[in-house]
C-alpha cells in the first residue's frame, strides 16, 4: 500500500485519547430548563420572536436570523419562555439568550420523528438551500458558519467537489466517529442533498485512518453511488481544517486569504450532513446534536444526543465526572476548544464535546526562554513562522505581522502544543490577528 494521503505542510500528532470511542450514542434526557443563546453561529445574532411567558413547542422558530450571515434558532424543548436575558455563554461573556422552563415534550407536528430512512430527494436545488436556511443549520465542525450561505456560490465561481469532513482530528472527540457508525445511511443521504443543493457531481468523504470501522461502513453505504468516494487519511492534526483537508484529498491549495470555492471545493462536516438530512427529509430544525463528554476525570466517557440549551453541568453529572479532581472544563477538543468559566454554560450548535482535565493537567507547562529550535515553524500547517509572528505582536509591529501572513493563521495551536519552552505563541498571534484584522478593515473603509 502506498503512503496514505495527508496534507503537505507541518502538522502534529498528539496522543489520540479517544476514550469514548466505544460508547454508543445515548439520548440525553430533556433538561428542566434550557438556555438557548440567540447567536449560535458565526455572524450576526438572530432576533427573538417570542416574549416572556409565551408557550413554545419543540422545533418552533424562536429567533430569526435576519442578516445575510446569520442563522435561525429553534426551541429545543417545549414549555414556557421564562425570560430573555443575558446569560454566560461559551466565550465567558454574557450574551442574549432565551431561557425556557420545560414542561413535557411536545413537538411541532410538522416534524417527522419516525426513524424510517428517507432516501429519495424530492426538493429542488433552490428549495434545499431554502430549507437548510429555514431549519437553522450551521457548520457543526466547530466554526458554525451558516450552511445555507456556504451553499450560495458567488457569481463566476464553479464548484466541482463537495468535501465531507469526517476527519475528527482533535484528540478525545468521538462525536463524528460515532455518528458515522450509527447514522451512516442518513449521512450519505445528507451528502447527496448537499451535492444537489450545491450542484456538483462529485463528493469525497475524508476520514482519518484511526477510524477503520467508520471508513468501512461509510464506504459500504456509499458504494451504490459511484460519485461519492470515501478516502482514508493518515492521522495528522489539523487535518480537519478545511484548507488542509482539501490539500490532503486533492493536492490543491486554497490561495492565501481566499475561500475553498477558489479551488472548486466546498467543505462540510459529517455532522452537518446528518443535520441537513434531518432538516430536508424530516423537516427537523437543528435542535439537538451529538456531544462527546470525555476526559481523564470522567468515569463514563460518553457520546450523548443532547438538546441545544442543556447546561454542561447535567452532562457531567450523567457521565460521572469527578469534579473535585477536575481543574479545567473545555468546550470542544484539547487543541482548539474553549475553556469554560462556568458549568451553567449551555450546549450550543457548535459544542462538539466537553472535555475535562484533572487539576494537575490544567495549567500550561513551565514557561522558558525561546531556544529558536524552529519546531513551531516546522509544524505550522500554513507555513508561517509562529515565533516571528508572536514577536511582532508582542512588539506591536503590525505591518510586519501582516506581511508575514498572520491572517492566514487558523489558530490550530500546533505551535504552542509543540513548543519546548511553553511559549504562548498562539495567545500573541490571536492578539496580532485581532489588531491586523482591524487595520485591514479600517483601510477598506477609507
Amino acid at each position, binding site marked *: 500500500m502506498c503512503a496514505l494521503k495527508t496534507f503537505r505542510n507541518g502538522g502534529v500528532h498528539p496522543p489520540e485519547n479517544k476514550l469514548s470511542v466505544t460508547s454508543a450514542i445515548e439520548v440525553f434526557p430533556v433538561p428542566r430548563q434550557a438556555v438557548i443563546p440567540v447567536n449560535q453561529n458565526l455572524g450576526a445574532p438572530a432576533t427573538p420572536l417570542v416574549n416572556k411567558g409565551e408557550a413554545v413547542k419543540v422545533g418552533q422558530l424562536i429567533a430569526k436570523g435576519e442578516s445575510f450571515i446569520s442563522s435561525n434558532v429553534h426551541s429545543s424543548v417545549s414549555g414556557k419562555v421564562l425570560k430573555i436575558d443575558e446569560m454566560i455563554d461559551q466565550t465567558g461573556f454574557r450574551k442574549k439568550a432565551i431561557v425556557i422552563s420545560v414542561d413535557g415534550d411536545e413537538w411541532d407536528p410538522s416534524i417527522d420523528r419516525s426513524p424510517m430512512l428517507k432516501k429519495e430527494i424530492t426538493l429542488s436545488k433552490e428549495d434545499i438551500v431554502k430549507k437548510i436556511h429555514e431549519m437553522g443549520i450551521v457548520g457543526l465542525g466547530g466554526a458554525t458558519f451558516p450552511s445555507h450561505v456556504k451553499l450560495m456560490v458567488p457569481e463566476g465561481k464553479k464548484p466541482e467537489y463537495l468535501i465531507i469532513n469526517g476527519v475528527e482530528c482533535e484528540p478525545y472527540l468521538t462525536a463524528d466517529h460515532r455518528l458515522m457508525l450509527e447514522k451512516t445511511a442518513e449521512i450519505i443521504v445528507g451528502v447527496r442533498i448537499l451535492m444537489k443543493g450545491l450542484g456538483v457531481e462529485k463528493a469525497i468523504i475524508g476520514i482519518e485512518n484511526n477510524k477503520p470501522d467508520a471508513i468501512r461502513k461509510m464506504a459500504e453505504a456509499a458504494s451504490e453511488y459511484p460519485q461519492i468516494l470515501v478516502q482514508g487519511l493518515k492521522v495528522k492534526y489539523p487535518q480537519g481544517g478545511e*484548507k488542509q483537508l482539501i490539500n490532503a484529498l486533492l493536492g490543491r491549495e486554497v490561495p*492565501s486569504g481566499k475561500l475553498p470555492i477558489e479551488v472548486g471545493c466546498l467543505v462540510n462536516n459529517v455532522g452537518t450532513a446528518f443535520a441537513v438530512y434531518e432538516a430536508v427529509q424530516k423537516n427537523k430544525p437543528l435542535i439537538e446534536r451529538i456531544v462527546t463528554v470525555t476526559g481523564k476525570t470522567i468515569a463514563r466517557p460518553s457520546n450523548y444526543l443532547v438538546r441545544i440549551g442543556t447546561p454542561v453541568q447535567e452532562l457531567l453529572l450523567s457521565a460521572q465526572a469527578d469534579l473535585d479532581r477536575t481543574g*479545567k*472544563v473545555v468546550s470542544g477538543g484539547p487543541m*482548539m*476548544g474553549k475553556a469554560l468559566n462556568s458549568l451553567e454554560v449551555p450546549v450550543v450548535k457548535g459544542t462538539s464535546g466537553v472535555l475535562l482535565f484533572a487539576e494537575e493537567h490544567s495549567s500550561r507547562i513551565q514557561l522558558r*526562554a525561546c531556544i529558536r529550535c*524552529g519546531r513551531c515553524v516546522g509544524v505550522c500547517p*500554513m507555513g508561517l513562522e509562529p515565533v516571528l509572528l508572536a514577536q511582532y505582536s508582542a512588539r506591536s509591529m503590525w505591518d510586519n505581522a501582516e506581511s508575514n501572513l498572520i491572517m492566514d493563521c487558523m489558530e490550530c495551536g500546533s505551535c504552542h502544543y509543540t513548543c519546548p519552552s511553553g511559549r504562548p505563541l498562539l495567545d500573541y498571534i*490571536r492578539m496580532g490577528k485581532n489588531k491586523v484584522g482591524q487595520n485591514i478593515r479600517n483601510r477598506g473603509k477609507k
Partner: protein
Amino acid sequence: MSLLTVSGSPHIHSDQPVPKIMYGVVIAMIPAMLVSFYFFGLGAAKVMLTSILACLFFEWVIQKYLLRGPLTINDGSALVTGVLLAFNVPSSLPVWMTITGAFVAIAVAKMSFGGLGQNPFNPALVGRVFLLMSFPVQMTTWPIPKPLFGGTAVTDAISGPTTLGIVKEGLDAGKTVSELLPQLPTYAGELLGNQGGSLGEVSAIALLIGAAWMFWKKIITWHIPVSYILAVVIFSGIFWLINPEQYLDPVFHLITGGMMLGVFYMATDMVSSPINTKGMLIFGAGCGILTMIIRLWGGYPEGVSFAILIMNAFTPLINRSFKPRRFGVVKPS
C-alpha cells in the same frame, strides 16, 4: 474543584520540554564520552569533570548574582555546553585552561547575551576557539590514544598530531597522499576512535550511535546533518576525483577530525541555527563548504569549529532571507 482554570487553546502540550531535549543530547553523548575515557584515561575524565562543573558554576553564579533571574542550571543547557567543550579539547589540557574555556563559553558567549536562547554563537565552540587562539600549543598537543585494557601499550606521555594534522603537514611539505597513507590510522581505527584528537571527536561510531538516538527521540532533524555531509562529500569528492594524490577521499574527511561531532552535535544547536528547514539546509551546506575550504587550503588542519561559527553569524540573515514554504502562496509576496 474550587475554581476552573481558564486559558486559551491549546490545552495539551507535547512531552518534550527544554530539559528533556538537553538531557537527551547529554545521553546521546555518553557513548563518545565512554570511548574518550577508554582511549585517553584519567586525563579525559579530569577534563570532562572540570568542564562540566565550571560551566554549571558560571551559569549559576551569573544567573544568581548578575542577571538575578530564575535559576537555569537545571535546564541542562549548561551541562550540554560543558560536555561539548570537553569534547572539543585535548585530554592533556591543564585544569585552569579548561576553566578559562568554560568561562568564555558560558559567561561571554552565552550569559552576556542574556542566557539560553539569546546566544548568536554556539557557546562551546566559542570556548574552544578562544582556547585554540590563546593557547595554541596546549590545544594542539594530542595525547596518543592508549586503550585502558588489552591495547597495544605505548610508553607514557607520548603525544602526536591528529590524523588531519599529519595530512596537512605532509601535503604542505610536498608529499603525496600515497606517501602519507602508511602514517595514517586505518579507516577502522578512525571509526572506532583510535586516532589522536580532542576528547569526543575521535570515534565516529560512538558519535553516530548518539546521533541515531537523537534522531529516534526526534531531538534533531535530518536537515542540517544531511546537507552538511552532502556538501562535504561533494566538495571533497570533486577534488579527490581531480587529483587523488593531492586530496584525500570524502570518507576520510567524514570520519576524521571533528566532523561527526560538528555535524550532529554542534551545527544542530537549535539556538544558533536557522528556524526553518530551507534555512537549515543552506546552513548545513555552508558549514560543509567552509569546513572543506579551511581543511584543504586554510592555515588550520581542521575547520569544523570555524565553519560552524561563521555560519552561526549568518543565521539571522538566513532566517530573514529564506522563508518557509507558505501554504497557498504561489510566489513569495
